[in-house]
């Protein structure tokens, strides 16, 4: 029996203060397969993997790997035993080269000196094997997130692992990069390596998975072969209920122009971007990673210096130089980098909710009103948290995002910009966030949604602006939307003036 | 559970460390173990407990402290020495602690001689013995508040006298010098420098300072760094220092630059161990012995005499000033002729 599985985890329990993250969870992985773990954020997938590789010590349960009981005390131990993990948040040494990152901590040596030549050669060899096109001497900080991801994967493989765990590896990758990743995964499978894959993207899961295990709220639900499952079934098991509509789109009247951006530029990242946003409208922004969408939003919000062009709100030109100015003009921005410039990790949910709205609480600050406001948004956005005093970093990604959304809604903005609002968020929370956005538009707010997930952009938007290398290359109405058309604009340089800006229609 | 245990472990470890240190402190100096064990820190129980507050600890003050500790042992006094680390506020706190502990007298080597009044205030009913640093405002001295030290008006004077004789013998009535001051503004520095100039003047020799005023803060390294660039760029006939440490720093700098230190008269004050060795080597021509052991012993004797109601020089041949509240421990000039006498002082 045990021969059949390379890895068996049984009855795993993991408790954190105040939360039971895993409650008797099991997982059985066959060698040479892609085994996908599914579940909403907070379901315990990542925690389970961290228990496996020794980052966390499980409170109970057994792990059998290659027929023997194991209990790793550190990730290093697991790594040396052939289990490696590529984390959701990468932690490369930015100032060092690619090859140094691959061999970090186990550099080949000549005497007491590092043998850089061998390091480089070994690296090239690996790249060749995996079909990765990277310069081993390039500094890590010069790479795109996708390339960094590749380096991490190469690094994991270089340990001759029998199990490679990938935690949402594609969340920052472009489609072609995803293809590269899948090719590598296929090669790993061919070498009898088991890949444990964590992702929320249904289409890719069904493309590559052999087995799918589903978790919900720290408990194990089921394991099935992928061919025996349907998307709807998976979603149903994950959320424990049927999700009727992923992108609930409500018809609402679109009002007059509230925001007009005219030939906005910011350095090399944003080049003469123009568009208009109407009240009650959801304007999608699509494009490849690096197309300048985030930078455009940051320029509008005053986070990055404007080097040209103008921004008009309600027909009046505004000069926004800082996020404070933006807030004064009733603009809110839910940033893309939730951890980097979104949450205040060690502070409470309450603090995180009210922080953008501090000026309304008077002097001395009205703590009761803060608590009341927080409670209102916890209820309204159904935020799952042990209490409003819990540290926000202990919440799942989806709930963190909802707190941030609540933070901005509390400021009662006229214009809400959300950048990758559902990145790394599970299906259930995703649908909820889409509903909230749709509700807001119905209430007359003007909303910009920046997203790299085409189905999302297409699902929620009234119109979609497509950018490529800092320029707007197309604007499409909802009725004209198709994935092919968006990709066409997203990958080409010249601008079709016809569809540039919808004027006076 | 695990975290809990760790925290308890941390707590108990800390308690143990404190206990250990307490034990160390108690047993480390054998004079105070007696009073500690019966929990009696006051003076009525055979052994008297006193506190000596040091302004800081340098070589000379260390010798003084050592002599005081030795004397205390011989007298059967339980002496607690503490270092105020140049912090007036800390010094005042130490005085108050001694008062709170019910001690009868406190010996203070002041951080800042301007604060004598505050020291006396903080000491409350305790007798106060100021040692080595003379109060700027000496009106605080009375039958309960006394000073033990050497008369700084004579230290520099000895240097001046020696230098005058030296240059007169060479037939000069004028010479230039580099002067290494201690800490500017400090009474000892001021007096040493003033009395030096007076010593020169009284003996009919004119000294000209070859540089802008230098303040090396009594530190050997400071003096070395400060004088090094001047040695070859300045015209000077002598090097005068407010203490031996700085003079030694100057000698060090000269040797570094290949200048023979015996060619220039160099004078210091203190006759410290290293200073006396330099006198024997011929590099330091003259120094003035300020008796650290005498001051340390004297302070303790004065404290004991105060407690017992005797004159503060009782049992010694040291002299008092006319008020009877100052015990002078004399300065003595030291040259190669008499340096050996100081080896066992």
């Amino acid at each position: 029996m045990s021969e059949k599985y390379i890895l068996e985890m049984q009855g795993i329990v993991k408790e954190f203060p105040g939360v039971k993250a895993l409650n008797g969870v099991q997982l059985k992985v066959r060698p040479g397969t892609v085994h996908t773990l599914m579940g909403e954020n907070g379901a315990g997938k990542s925690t389970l993997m961290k228990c496996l590789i020794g980052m966390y010590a499980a409170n109970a349960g057994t792990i059998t790997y290659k027929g023997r009981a194991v209990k790793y005390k550190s990730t290093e131990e697991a790594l040396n035993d052939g289990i490696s993990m590529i984390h959701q948040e990468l932690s490369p040494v930015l100032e060092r080269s690619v090859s140094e990152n691959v061999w970090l901590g186990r550099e080949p040596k000549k005497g007491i000196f590092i043998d850089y030549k061998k390091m480089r050669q070994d690296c090239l060899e690996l790249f060749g094997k995996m079909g990765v096109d990277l310069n081993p001497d390039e500094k890590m900080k010069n790479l795109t997130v996708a390339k960094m991801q590749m380096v991490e994967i190469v690094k994991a493989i270089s340990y001759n692992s029998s199990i490679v765990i990938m935690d949402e590896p594609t969340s920052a990758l472009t489609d072609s990069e995803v293809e590269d990743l899948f090719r590598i995964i296929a090669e790993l499978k061919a070498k009898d390596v088991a890949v444990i894959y964590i992702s929320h993207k249904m289409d890719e899961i069904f493309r590559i998975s052999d087995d799918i295990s589903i978790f919900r709220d720290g408990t194990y639900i089921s394991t099935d072969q992928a061919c025996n499952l349907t998307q709807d079934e998976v979603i149903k098991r994950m959320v424990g209920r049927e999700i009727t509509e992923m992108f609930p789109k409500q018809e609402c009247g679109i009002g007059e122009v509230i925001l007009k951006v005219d030939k906005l530029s910011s350095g090399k990242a944003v080049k003469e971007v123009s568009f208009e946003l109407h009240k009650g409208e959801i304007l999608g922004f699509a494009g490849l990673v690096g197309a300048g969408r985030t930078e455009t939003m940051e320029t509008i919000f005053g986070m990055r210096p404007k080097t040209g062009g103008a921004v008009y709100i309600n027909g009046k030109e505004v000069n926004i130089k800082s996020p404070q100015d933006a807030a004064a003009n009733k603009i809110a921005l839910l940033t893309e980098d939730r951890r980097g410039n979104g949450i205040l990790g060690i502070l409470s949910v309450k603090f995180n909710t009210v922080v953008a709205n501090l000026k309304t609480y008077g002097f001395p600050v009205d703590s009761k009103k803060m608590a009341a406001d927080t409670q209102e948004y916890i209820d309204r956005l159904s935020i799952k948290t042990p209490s409003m005093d819990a540290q926000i970093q202990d919440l799942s990604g989806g709930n963190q995002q909802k707190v941030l959304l609540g933070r901005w809604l509390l400021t009662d903005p006229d214009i809400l910009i959300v950048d990758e609002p559902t990145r790394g968020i599970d299906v259930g929370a995703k649908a909820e966030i889409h509903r909230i956005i749709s509700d807001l538009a119905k209430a007359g707010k003007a909303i910009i949604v920046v997203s790299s997930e085409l189905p999302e952009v297409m699902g929620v938007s009234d119109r979609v602006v497509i950018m490529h290398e800092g320029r707007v290359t197309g604007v499409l109405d909802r009725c004209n939307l198709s994935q092919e058309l968006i990709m066409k604009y997203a990958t080409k340089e010249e601008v079709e003036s016809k569809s540039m800006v919808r004027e006076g229609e | 559970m695990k975290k809990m245990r760790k925290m308890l472990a941390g707590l108990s470890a800390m308690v143990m460390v404190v206990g250990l240190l307490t034990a160390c402190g108690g047993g480390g100096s054998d004079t105070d173990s007696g009073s500690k064990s019966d929990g009696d820190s006051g003076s009525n129980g055979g052994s008297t407990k006193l506190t000596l507050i040091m302004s800081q600890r340098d070589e000379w003050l260390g010798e003084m402290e050592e002599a005081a500790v030795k004397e205390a042992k011989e007298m059967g006094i339980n002496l607690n020495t503490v270092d105020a680390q140049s912090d007036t506020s800390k010094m005042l706190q130490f005085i108050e602690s001694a008062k709170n502990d019910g001690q009868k007298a406190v010996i203070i080597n002041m951080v800042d001689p301007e604060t004598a009044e505050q020291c006396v205030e903080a000491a409350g009913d305790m007798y106060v013995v100021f040692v080595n640093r003379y109060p700027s405002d000496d009106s605080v001295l009375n039958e309960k508040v006394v000073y033990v030290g050497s008369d700084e008006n004579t230290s520099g004077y000895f240097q001046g006298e020696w230098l005058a004789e030296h240059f007169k013998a060479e037939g000069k009535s004028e010479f230039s010098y580099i002067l290494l001051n201690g800490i500017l503004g400090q009474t000892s520095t001021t007096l040493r420098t003033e009395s030096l100039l007076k010593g020169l003047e009284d003996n009919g020799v004119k000294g000209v300072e070859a540089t802008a005023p230098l303040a090396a803060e009594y530190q050997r390294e400071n003096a070395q760094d400060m004088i090094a660039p001047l040695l070859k760029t300045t015209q000077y006939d002598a090097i005068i220092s407010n203490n031996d440490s700085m003079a030694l720093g100057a000698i060090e700098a000269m040797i570094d630059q290949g200048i023979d230190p015996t060619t220039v008269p160099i004078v210091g004050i203190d006759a410290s161990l290293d200073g006396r060795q330099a006198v024997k080597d011929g590099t330091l021509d003259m120094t003035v012995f300020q008796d650290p052991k005498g001051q340390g012993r004297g302070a303790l004797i004065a404290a004991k005499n105060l407690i017992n109601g005797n004159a503060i020089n009782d049992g010694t041949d040291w002299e008092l000033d006319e008020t009877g509240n100052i015990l002078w421990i004399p300065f003595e000039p030291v040259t190669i002729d008499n340096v050996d006498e100081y080896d066992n002082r």
Partner: protein
Amino acid sequence: MSIQRKKFLSDNMIWLVLIALVIIMSIANRNFATVSNLTTLLTGEAIKGIMAFGVAFAILTKGIDLSLGAVAALVGAVSGALVQPTDFAMRTLSSGVRLPAPAAILIGLLLGAAIGGCIGAIIAYTEIPAFIATLGAQLICRAAAKMFSNRPVSKLSDDYRFLGSGRVLGIPMIVIVFIIIAVISWFILVHTRFGKSLYAIGANSQAARVAGINVNANLIKVYVWCSLMAALGGVLLAGRSGSSDPSTSGLNYELDAIAAATVGGTSHTGGVCSVTGVIAGILILGVINNGLVLMGVDDNMTNILKGIIIIGSVVLDMRKNIKKV
């Protein structure tokens, strides 16, 4: 053990340590737990404590202030020089009148605030580490103090000395000032927008900026506050001893203040600070300072113990606050 009890222990560890120390000291020396000795203890720690409240704000925003002691020396000397008797031969300012104490103190505090404003502006706008900026400020302020007067500024007027050495109802003014500052610090941190902003900046300055908090302006205010506390410390130091020696006044006080704030659980990774914690930190170090002196323990041993406690407290703090990875 229930999670609540674990949390209680972890949150109140510092008070348990303090209580344990007080018990040990009381047993070891019967003169420790007397009113007069505890007053001495508080008087001795009050100035460092006030500076600790200053630097705690800086540490809360992931900064530090190494200039506290030097600013104290400069302010002590300058404000002190304004209240020396006009007929005093060693007067620092050869001409000029003797100001009433409140005016001199106010000038001192304004000088402190101005220095803080400069330090804060440098940190906020050049983005150099606070460690470097305040290290430089330390050297400059100490040198400026020594240039201002090369000898102790003494014979300070009695009204000037009231804050530092006066008593009201038997309680030293210095302790009263400390308590007032503690209350003000608590009020700022818990009940003002400024205080809340500091937590946000410390936790994640990028996120704070996006959330519309003027990070630069708040950083400047932080260092104004720091230097203001240092200036107040300088006035108290001068008042306490009646003389302010520019070369030694406040020497290394910043380190004691940082130690107290650190032991009090102020996290150097930012975003964590409580006034009660800082008070506990000050008291722990004070109990050690005072208690071990009473026991006749060697200073070096005292410092070893302090070192162990500082490191130990940060180890505990890291375990508590850093997300378990």
